[in-house]
Structures are given as C-alpha cells and as structure tokens.
C-alpha cells in the first residue's frame, strides 16, 4: 500500500526565513508526485508534478525537488500570504488513486 509521510506537521516561520518541507514516500511504481496548497475551507490547489528522481520545478518562492524516496518543498523568503497547508501526494495506480500525506501547516509571521 502506498504511504506518504510529511514533516513537520506544523511550521512557523518569520517573514523572509527560508525553510524546507519534507515528503517521504513508499510506492510500488511512482507515476507522479504532486504538491498541493490548501487554504482553510478550500480544496487543494495544484502546485507541481514531479516524475523522476533529480527533477526540480520552481514557482515564485517555491521549489520542489524529488529523489527516489522523498521530495522537498523549499520556500525561499516566505511572505504571510504563503501561509497554508502544503500537501504531498503520490500516484502509482493504473487509475487515478492519489494518496495524500497529512500535510504541513505553514504559518508565516510578518
């Protein structure tokens, strides 16, 4: 069974203080690793898809990287509007069963 573990569960940063979120995974044949952002009371919003070890993707202050066992979401010089829960998910099945982690709740303080 696919497993996704995210750490830390919660992270509090000062504005401008860079950090990284971790996602470790166990799957039988990775077809895609996803990062989503979720604001309170909303559905997850797609950020990135990574397919193979060594791949990196960037969007504004966010950069996602992938190894064979884990993915990192690096946040550079975060702003208060980056406060949200960041979810990691993996897709390994022939159909669209995506397994999510519990997320990292990020709070950026001005």
């Amino acid at each position, binding site marked *: 069974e696919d497993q996704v573990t995210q750490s830390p569960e919660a992270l509090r940063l000062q504005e401008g203080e860079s950090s990284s979120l971790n996602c470790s995974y166990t799957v039988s044949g990775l077809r895609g690793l*996803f990062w989503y952002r979720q604001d309170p009371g909303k559905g997850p919003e797609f950020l990135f898809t990574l397919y193979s070890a060594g791949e990196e993707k960037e969007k504004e202050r966010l950069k996602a990287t992938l190894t064979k066992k884990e993915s990192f979401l690096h946040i550079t010089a975060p702003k208060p509007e980056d406060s949200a829960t960041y979810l990691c998910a993996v897709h390994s099945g022939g*159909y*669209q*069963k*995506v397994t999510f*982690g519990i*997320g990292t709740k990020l709070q950026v303080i001005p």
Partner: protein
Amino acid sequence: DAGVTQSPTHLIKTRGQHVTLRCSPISGHKSVSWYQQVLGQGPQFIFQYYEKEERGRGNFPDRFSARQFPNYSSELNVNALLLGDSALYLCASSLVPGTGHEKLFFGSGTQLSVL
C-alpha cells in the same frame, strides 16, 4: 472558465440519514474523483469515475456509492450516516486519468456534519 463546482457547500444531517453530494467538473474534463478529508488529515480517495464507469474505489464501506452522468457530472451518496462520516468531501476533475501526468482540479468541497 468555471472551475469544479460542488453543492451544497455545507450540510447537517443526523445519524442514520442518507446524503447526496453533487459535483460538476471543469468543462471538457471526463474524469471525476471523490475524496474525504477529515479535519487535520489529508484527503483520502473514495472513488474515481471516467466516462461514466467506476475506475477505482478506495477503502470505504458499501454505504458509499457514486455515479457519473452523461454530462460528466457526478453524485456521491452515503447511506446510514455515522458520526465518523463528518468531513469535508472533495470532488476533483481531470482530463484523462491513469497516466500519472494529469493534475487534479479540486472543488471547494461539501462540509458534512453528522449529529
């Protein structure tokens, strides 16, 4: 363009009742998936429908059922509600499932409270 729309946004039911949740995918998307998100947890896969056929089912009891209509909209039905069914129910659509390349577009969800 309209995103994924779900109705109702909030719902309060009592134990033992039945509930129907509705979802309209993004225009052109033929795949709809349903997820349950309990407070403080990540979304958990319930069903996936593609071209009106069930293509995947998560580890949920038979009280949960779903269907997809010819216009690709979908309904999630839950019978004999339990207190533990209280959660945010998310619908997600995508173009073509199963390739690993698709990204899911989520609606804002239906918040179900079972009393």
